[in-house]
């Protein structure tokens, strides 16, 4: 009786054991992400493409809700149950994870050479020595316009600031369209679609941003106040009651064809393509004189890193190298028009509006939003204050100089640039 039981047990373990062996050949990688919206893209397009090329590695995309992501990820990392691959938020949130030792150093990962320094800046230590996430996508700022409206009023696409304001005047004089669809109620529209959109042309992109971080320039300098002066000039071209106009209001005003120009981020492309019944075009923020170098905000938004505690680090690195490859970039950028790959290799995209946006990378210099790296770590928070002050400037509550002074005073109170 006992021998029978023993044999059965032994037999059982041997079967189970061999099953375990067979299973061990397949490595399963889990991806932590807040992009639940992208679940079908990962499941149907990206993961099959990777698995076809890399037999033996299985990938599972396991997103959590955006608002819970940071807290849930922190708890899982502490408990040691987090996935192997971690979708990285830009700047400080990921930097903190790296400092705590939760994210592995990926500076030497094959494929990292495919990215420019600006692309990598969101996931680097302050000195730029270590990179810890593979950049996945960025969003580009510019202006989307109603092509039908421009044709009807025979307006040429503006390239200089004078042409831009001449176009706005013409639309306003005609009266059919609201010249520009933007509101100040939600504050961030004024800062992100306004200040950070037109600003890089004034502060010369990365040069100005780096100088601000080093403390060589101040927000009260001419180059940093001038975008506010231009914003203040936008006021008469905005719709009636723009003070209480929310972000969805602005989107609807434009897609319903009631407004001619929309200060945009490229993430709008997907939505606008499905909602707008007219032809759309896009132009980069106008420069001062024809022929000036143009600068665009090409803001890094999503990256992917490696959990330092991962048991399958090698397989995960294989996957990350693939994320850094042009193959991934092509599938991702086409599945999500408006989220552009940061890969240096050119990516072919089918969407004409997305193509227009990404073509600016060829002729303009890229930068990221000025407030995101390092400068928004203290109290008062520079990014939040920029939202409030940008809205104040457009509403006319603060002059451009007063707004810049408030921001610089707030920044000075805690930020001491390394000399």
């Amino acid at each position, binding site marked *: 009786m006992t021998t029978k039981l023993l044999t059965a047990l032994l037999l059982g373990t041997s079967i189970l054991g061999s099953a375990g062996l067979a299973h061990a050949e397949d490595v399963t990688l889990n991806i932590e992400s807040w992009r639940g919206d992208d679940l079908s893209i990962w499941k149907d397009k990206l993961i099959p493409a990777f698995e076809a090329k890399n037999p033996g590695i299985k990938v599972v995309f396991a997103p959590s809700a955006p608002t819970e992501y940071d807290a849930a990820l922190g708890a899982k990392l502490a408990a040691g149950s987090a996935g192997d691959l971690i979708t990285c938020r830009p700047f400080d949130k990921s930097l903190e994870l790296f400092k705590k030792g939760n994210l592995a150093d990926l500076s030497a990962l094959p494929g990292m050479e495919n990215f420019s320094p600006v692309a990598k800046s969101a996931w680097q230590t302050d000195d730029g020595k270590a990179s810890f996430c593979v950049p996945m996508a960025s969003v580009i700022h510019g202006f989307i316009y109603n092509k039908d409206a421009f044709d009807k009023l025979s307006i040429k696409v503006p390239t200089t600031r004078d042409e831009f304001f001449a176009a706005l005047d013409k639309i306003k004089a005609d009266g059919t369209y609201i010249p520009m669809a933007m509101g*100040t109620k*939600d504050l961030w529209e004024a800062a992100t679609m306004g200040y950070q959109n037109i600003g890089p042309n004034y502060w010369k992109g990365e040069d100005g941003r780096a100088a601000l971080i080093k403390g060589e320039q101040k927000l009260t300098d001419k180059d940093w106040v001038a975008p506010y002066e231009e914003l203040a000039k936008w006021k008469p071209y905005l719709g009636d*009651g723009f003070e209480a106009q929310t972000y969805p209001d602005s989107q609807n005003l434009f897609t319903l064809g009631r407004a001619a120009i929309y200060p945009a981020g490229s993430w709008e492309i997907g939505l606008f393509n499905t909602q707008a019944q007219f032809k759309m075009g896009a132009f980069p923020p106008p420069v001062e004189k024809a022929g000036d170098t143009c600068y665009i905000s090409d803001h890094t938004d999503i990256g992917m890193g490696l959990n330092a505690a991962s048991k399958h680090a090698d397989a995960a690195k294989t996957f990350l190298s693939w994320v850094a490859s042009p193959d991934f970039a092509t599938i991702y950028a086409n599945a999500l028009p408006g989220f552009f790959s940061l890969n240096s290799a050119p990516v072919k995209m089918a969407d004409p509006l997305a193509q227009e946006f990404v073509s600016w990378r060829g002729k303009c210099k890229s930068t990221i939003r000025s407030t995101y790296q390092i400068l928004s770590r203290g109290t008062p928070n520079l990014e939040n204050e920029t939202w409030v002050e940008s809205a104040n400037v457009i509403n006319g509550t603060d002059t451009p100089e007063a707004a810049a002074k408030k921001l610089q005073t707030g920044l000075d109170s805690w930020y001491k640039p390394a000399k």
Partner: protein
Amino acid sequence: MAADSRPKRPFRWHIGVFLAPAVLVYTAIMILPLAGTLQLSMFRNIEQSQVFVGLANFRTLFGDPNWSVGFWNALRNNTWFFIIHMLVQNPIGVMLAALLSSPRLRFAAFYRTAIFVPTILSFVIVGFAWKLILSPLWGVAPHLMDFVGLKSLFTPWLGKEQYALTALSLISVWQFVGIPMMLIYAALLSIPEEVIEAAECDGITGLSQFWKIKLPLILPSIGIISILTFVGNFNAFDLIYTAQGALAGPNYSTDILGTFLYRAFFGFQLQVGDPNMGAAIATMMFLIILGGVCVYLFLVQTRLRRYQF
């Protein structure tokens, strides 16, 4: 000995047993979190570990202009929010209750329900609905005002610094006017018929009956409502958050203590949350509310006369 000869009273266990559930639940969900908040406000995160710093967080809150300006602004706005409720919500509540308790009013039950319904609506619905009503683009408010020839008086209230807070206070009044109405209505119904009849025999009727007889009798209820309004207003957060967002724009003009606490504790966008400063603000809110309730209990309520029937 006399003391010994007295029969010893058995220890009354049942008192403890009956009190225990309430005491345990209240301790677990109220007293412990409160103590935790007080404790958190005395610490600070230095080099990834919590260090005891005494009252330093409060010194920062009141001494550092980066915090104190925001705090006083929030307190000022909160006080205005409360004043509007006291001046508009409670008098209207009393008036509606007086009208409802009039025996000649028809459809009283319908009005009572209709006025009370907004109270049970979610803040999210109220905030969103009023944002739409007042929207300068698609709202009904500009059209309705146009209809009666008052279009020139319309401005985007929620977007203007000088009107936004008052507008939101009035929205909150609209939502909660049902509560003082119900409480006063109940108090009015509990006034015995004999008192009213005696007043009528003395020739006191109509409006003077309300002022001279009913109002003094419902004063304790009005006191309770005032203190409920006070506590509710200084804990308010939801409506501002849903209608104006966590930055309580424009230019922090609708920032109240609740939203100020939220930004400090949980952070917002790139601002990283600071639970210790957040706890310090929460402690101040607790002290403000405690102070207000004490003033009411010791100075006001003791002077209110109660009538036993």
